[in-house]
């Protein structure tokens, strides 16, 4: 009799389970970035003279990547608005890292980063500041959350905080994903998230994303989220404990509702995604390979909106086990910021994709300590790119772990650079004939 009652209860559970599965949202296509037809090769009337292209010089890494290099447009173009360099406001913390950005509704840009006595210290907090494009200045920094706030919100012990990554939800609110660790190093990380109704001035209670079956250990986030056509977020995450691989997590509210593996094994983390159309996308990774293996950028592609990924050939650009940032502009221009060297993080460049090709070209050397002795070289790492209006680009990156550098690339500068790049491609292809 008791067995019969138990089976009846199981039947009830089965019905509820099936209803639950039936209520789950189906996987949606990518939300396509609204693209203009690329006019990059057509020079606009009244524009500044083009930045001059020079033949590929010097570094071994550049040769390996088969890239050409543009002389700094800063020097060559006078009337084209030039990139503007500044710093995120100081918090007096000795160590800062992992800055990220999000556009606010009024057109300003909010930055997040972590700061403390050292990376992984219990006193690390998540800081934020707002960049006003009208005055080109940053607000005073504020503390978004510290370790204790995270502990109380999540109702569990938290040892340290890590990478913050913001995203804009379909309903207009802001969501901030933050890496947290309860035990061990970064391999013991989990992702938590908070939601803000007031553009990041205040934040709701943090909540944990459950993404791994082994005590939810070892899921981190670094790259910006993408949006699916149904308004839900796709969060490019990665594991770095037993395996080192990328995953695309589908997020609804503060819960992971599905996820797909983007790579496997122990060689690729921190995916940065370029969306081609509603179904196709490619992901570029930070390589974490053994010293005997190629120090190139691993690539995965999808043709079904991220439901499955295939590992493709490496991108022929050197990567020293360091993060890359990727950005698509409205006109189709694609840029990445990365360390194009095989060891160290002392050189940081911007590369741009030639229209309609898979070739990447260094268009701006942002930092380069190549000439300095090893011990004097500084670290330039963890770049993060954002476009506030679809045509411009904001870049933030860690500057020697002491400061966060911010560079603003005006739309006109990027357009001009793309135009020159395409002209050069034309010259190259005609020369080849």
């Amino acid at each position, binding site marked *: 009799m*008791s*067995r019969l009652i*138990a*089976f009846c*209860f*199981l039947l*009830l*559970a*089965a019905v*509820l*389970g*099936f*209803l*639950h*599965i039936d209520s*789950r949202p189906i996987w949606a296509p990518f939300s396509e970035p609204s693209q203009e037809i690329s006019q990059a090769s057509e020079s606009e009337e009244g524009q500044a003279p083009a930045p001059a292209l020079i033949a590929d010089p010097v570094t071994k890494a550049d040769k390996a990547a088969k890239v050409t290099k543009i002389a700094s447009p800063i020097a060559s173009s006078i009337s084209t608005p030039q990139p503007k360099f500044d710093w995120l406001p100081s918090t007096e913390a000795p160590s800062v890292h992992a800055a990220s950005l999000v556009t606010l509704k009024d057109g300003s840009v909010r930055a997040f980063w972590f700061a403390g006595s050292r990376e992984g210290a219990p006193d690390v907090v998540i800081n934020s500041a707002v960049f006003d494009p009208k005055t080109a200045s940053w607000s005073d920094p504020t503390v978004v959350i510290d370790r*204790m706030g995270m*502990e*109380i919100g*999540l*109702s*569990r*012990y*938290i*040892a340290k905080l890590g990478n913050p990554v913001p995203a804009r939800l379909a309903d207009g609110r802001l969501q901030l994903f933050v890496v947290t660790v*309860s*035990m061990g190093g970064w391999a013991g990380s989990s992702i938590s998230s908070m939601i803000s109704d007031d553009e990041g001035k205040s934040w709701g*209670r943090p*909540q*944990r*994303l*459950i993404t*791994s*079956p*082994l*005590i*939810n250990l070892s899921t981190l986030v670094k790259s910006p989220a993408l949006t699916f056509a149904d308004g839900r977020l796709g969060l490019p995450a990665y*594991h770095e*404990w*037993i*395996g*080192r*691989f990328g*995953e695309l997590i589908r997020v609804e509210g*503060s*819960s*992971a*509702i*599905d*996820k*797909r*593996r983007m*790579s*496997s*094994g*122990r060689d690729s983390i921190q995916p940065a995604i370029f969306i081609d159309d509603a179904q196709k996308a490619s992901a570029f990774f930070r390589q974490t390979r053994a010293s005997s293996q190629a120090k190139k950028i691993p690539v995965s592609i999808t043709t079904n909106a991220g439901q*499955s*990924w295939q*590992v493709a050939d490496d991108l022929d650009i050197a990567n020293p086990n360091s993060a890359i940032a990727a950005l698509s502009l409205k006109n189709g221009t694609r840029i990445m910021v990365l360390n194009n060297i095989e060891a160290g993080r002392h050189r940081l460049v911007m590369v741009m994709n030639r229209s309609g090709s898979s070739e990447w070209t260094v268009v701006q050397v942002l930092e380069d300590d190549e000439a300095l002795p090893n011990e004097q070289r500084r670290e330039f790492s963890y770049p993060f790119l954002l476009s506030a209006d679809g045509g411009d680009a904001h870049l933030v990156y860690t500057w020697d772990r002491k400061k966060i550098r911010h560079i603003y690339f005006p739309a006109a500068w990027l357009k001009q650079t793309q135009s020159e790049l395409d002209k050069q491609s034309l010259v190259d292809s005609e020369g080849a004939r």
Partner: protein
Amino acid sequence: MDNFMQHFALIELSFTCAVLMIWLIQKMMPFQLPVVARIIFAILFANLFFWPLGFSMALPLSAYVRGLTGDLSVVTSLLLWTSVLLNPKPIPLGFKWAMIVIAIAFYPFALGVGMMDPYAWGYGSIALLIAVLIFAIACGVANWTRAVWILAIAIIAWSVHWHESTNLWDYVLDPFLAIWALWAALYAIGQKRKEKARSGYLFRAG
């Protein structure tokens, strides 16, 4: 609802810690406590873990445990609670072996071997739900009704999003259950060998 979820998770874990204390006490005592006494003690001990104790700790004890273990699966919690607090039939060896086989097949792939991720099935795979139901029916047919109840409760908990996880795997399996199954199965093999050796000694030709 989210606030309640956090409170329920802490209550659950506090009770689990309390039940583990009862189990330890039972191990040290020469006699078995009555069921009612065990339940009362478990509730009393659970309070110790649930309420913040002050001193230099900002959180209750169970929150520190939760930081290390996360939320235990519903199957683990209910198996532990019922095994320690009630006087149920012993857990069949077949269940332990099944858990070991599932864990060995599951964890390597779920943690990054290859591009197939069985953990992702837990978010909404009908096939996985049917597999769990068949497993529960098999336990019932094998006359272990407790498992039918426990698995049914786990499925219901998953469908109402009881824990933070939306993944069915997190409600039916966790590493602690797999480690316990492995230890218990090996212990059972050891016991059988001992018994065999003893009986062999008794009936050996002189």
